[in-house]
């Protein structure tokens, strides 16, 4: 039996999150993935609202059987020391570009694309974006864009193309997008559905690698506060054994 934490205080019988299994890969529920990734993103320095977007994106990908947690971890590790102004998009008509010499965070870019989806700057057929790291993390946002616009959204980059359709499906070179280096890409809104992806079990649990769980958990633990004698006092039901 693994005892995950040394517990020396009064009990508190409920908690907000389950501890992550350590040292081995595990099937995580989408709820666990979303919560772990939200906390890890916050631990890596994202604002709470952006961290919510990160949790949403990782769980959305996992629901498609894609390694959202792994992609998010790679992003957080690469970007955690960079300032917001270096990773957030500069928005112009027809373009969401990185600041000079910078690389966009896909969570910042994706949430901005969704925020702007009904605004004039997006009322065009194509949009230049990038360069953006871990572009696979854009897919959940492109899917939300497609639903908002009720039109397919196609991302094209030198290594391939993927289409997100309004019904939530994605199709195309998804494997290539998952391994792509930072890319500059074009978003085409209203483009035709290219290929159809075979249906997968949308609720199959996602096996997340041990290293990914461990590293995300390390980031997530940064937002926790070490115990003190004061904090322990009265938190739970001491001597509750009648």
């Amino acid at each position: 039996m693994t005892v995950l934490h040394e517990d020396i205080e009064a009990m508190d019988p409920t908690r907000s999150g389950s501890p992550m299994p350590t040292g081995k890969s595990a099937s995580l529920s989408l709820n666990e993935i979303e919560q772990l990734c939200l906390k890890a993103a916050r631990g890596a320095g994202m604002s709470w609202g952006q961290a919510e977007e990160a949790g949403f994106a990782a769980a959305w990908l996992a629901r498609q059987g894609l390694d959202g947690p792994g992609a998010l971890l790679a992003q957080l590790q690469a970007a955690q020391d960079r300032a917001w102004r270096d990773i957030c998009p500069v928005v112009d008509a027809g373009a969401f570009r990185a600041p000079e010499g910078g690389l966009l965070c896909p969570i910042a870019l994706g949430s901005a694309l969704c925020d702007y989806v009904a605004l004039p700057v997006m009322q065009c057929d194509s949009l230049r974006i990038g360069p953006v790291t871990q572009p696979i993390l854009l897919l959940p946002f492109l899917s939300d864009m497609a639903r908002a616009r009720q039109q397919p959204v196609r991302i094209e980059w030198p290594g391939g193309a993927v289409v997100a359709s309004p019904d939530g499906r994605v199709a195309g070179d998804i494997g290539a997008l998952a391994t792509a280096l930072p890319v500059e890409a074009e978003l085409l809104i209203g483009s035709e559905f290219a290929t159809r992806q075979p249906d997968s079990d949308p609720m199959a649990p996602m096996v997340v690698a041990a290293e990914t769980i461990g590293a995300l958990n390390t980031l997530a633990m940064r937002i926790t506060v070490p115990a003190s004698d004061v904090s322990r006092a009265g938190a739970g039901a001491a001597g509750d054994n009648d």
Partner: protein
Amino acid sequence: MDRAHTCLPPETAPFRRAPSQVMRLDRMGCAHPTRLSFLRTLLRRIEREGWVFDRPVWEIDALGVGRAVYRAKGPERTYCLVAFAHDLPDEMRSDRVIATAWDATFALFDGEPTKADLDRLQANVPLQEAGRISPRELSLSRANRSVRLFAHVIDHLAQGQQPDIAEVESVGYLMRTTAVYGSGKFGAADRAAIADRPELNAPFQIEMLSVWLTRQFTVDIAEHLAAVQGGAKAVRLDPAIRRMLGVGNSTGLGMAPFLVRHPVLLNNWMMAREEALARVRAQESVTPQVADELRTALSAAQVNAAKWTSTHPLQVAKLEALRKDLDLLANWLGDWPAPDALYPWDALWRWAEAELSLEGQEALVALMLEPHGALIDDLAEQMTADESATFRLDGAMTTGALTCILADHYDWALDIDFDAPENIARFWYVSEEKLEPRLGNRFAEDGAALEQPLCIARLANELHAALADRPYDEPLAAFLLAHPDHRFMARRAQIAANHPFGEVRDNLIAEDMLPIDLMRCKLACFGASRFDPRSDKWVRISLFQDMPYPSDICPGGWT
């Protein structure tokens, strides 16, 4: 926009209470369970649909160790509570979150488990947090005995006697759950995967079913051990005494933030209850039969209030007020309804608002709903929430429009002076060693830099101030690129615009804030009774007390 918000008929509007009245912490901290509470919803469905219960597996030895399966067959699907009974030395019994052993551990299985499933669960469920379960499981939980009452009951039954009623009443349960985990925890099925099943669509139905079957197990194992101990002399529990037993539960700070983290859900819970109250108040008349049912419910509430004990000074005062209010109510109902008076329910309510304490008023909400099943029970279906539907921000909204939302829905927050130390005295954080929410003292403890975003009043205040510096017609999308720190609160404010009961309208980091008020509101929505605070941060409650057992519904399943 969700269903709950769009379904409100205009004719009840004049009878609806405002969020500014309902969503105050002191009033939420007086909430009583109603017929819309989740365990009542579960029991109504079970009765309506004729669910069948039995206990196909009972492999418990003379020491009380082994496993059992409780089967619940609905019209379309079957669920099984898999129970593991352990022989726990007294010195190891602890309700601590990371205790490593319990008297009993449970999983609610989706379908009927095979022997292989039971073996897999036996290798994981007893470990609780240190084990893993699968999407075939819907919940994971454990329970510990009330040492005092469990031994008392077994000893008496073994000797052919019934337990002492005073002992039974003073504890109220044989076992208390120390955690019931659902919604994808530890690898269990995600809520999204099962939320479209009608029987699981209402909130917390899995958890309620699990606890209700657990209540049956607590009696079964006590009778089993009494039979082992007493042999032919042993008797079974008197059904009347049995019915007095619920399942105990201790709830700490960990549950308090739930209502804050799920504004759409909170809105739908409160709005359903408030619409139910408004429908009752909007009745033009009352039949003698319904008036009698109200008086019967009141008598039951008076009995319950008499048995409801607590030693916590706050609750002692509340209980005194409640008992006095219920007596006043009984007296006033002597002349109610006045002959030919229109809207007698509204007259009753208006009298109560003028004469009763918050405890009495909120108790009356439950009493007024009780005889009106046909009128209000459909509202239980509006208490669920698809939170993903409200996740995406409307970035085209102008900062001016968002400012108006804050002025309309967060006026209570904008008036708070967050420079005053008493208004920022606390901070919510997650403890490193237990991964659970805690409440710290900002001026005496470290860790405020890691504050959780539960201080909604202050976040709304800060967003309001930041918006004032921007052009009125700037799209929110542009504002959030410049101010990513306000994304969390901007999303929340947009939700609040369509979910007026989604925010607890009090400062949750104030010096005098009582976390138990949050818990009481949530636990009342579950259907918990006998709320008994043991401090301002944790409470004891009872679930299913005075309600039927599965074996009452299907006596043949327990032979």
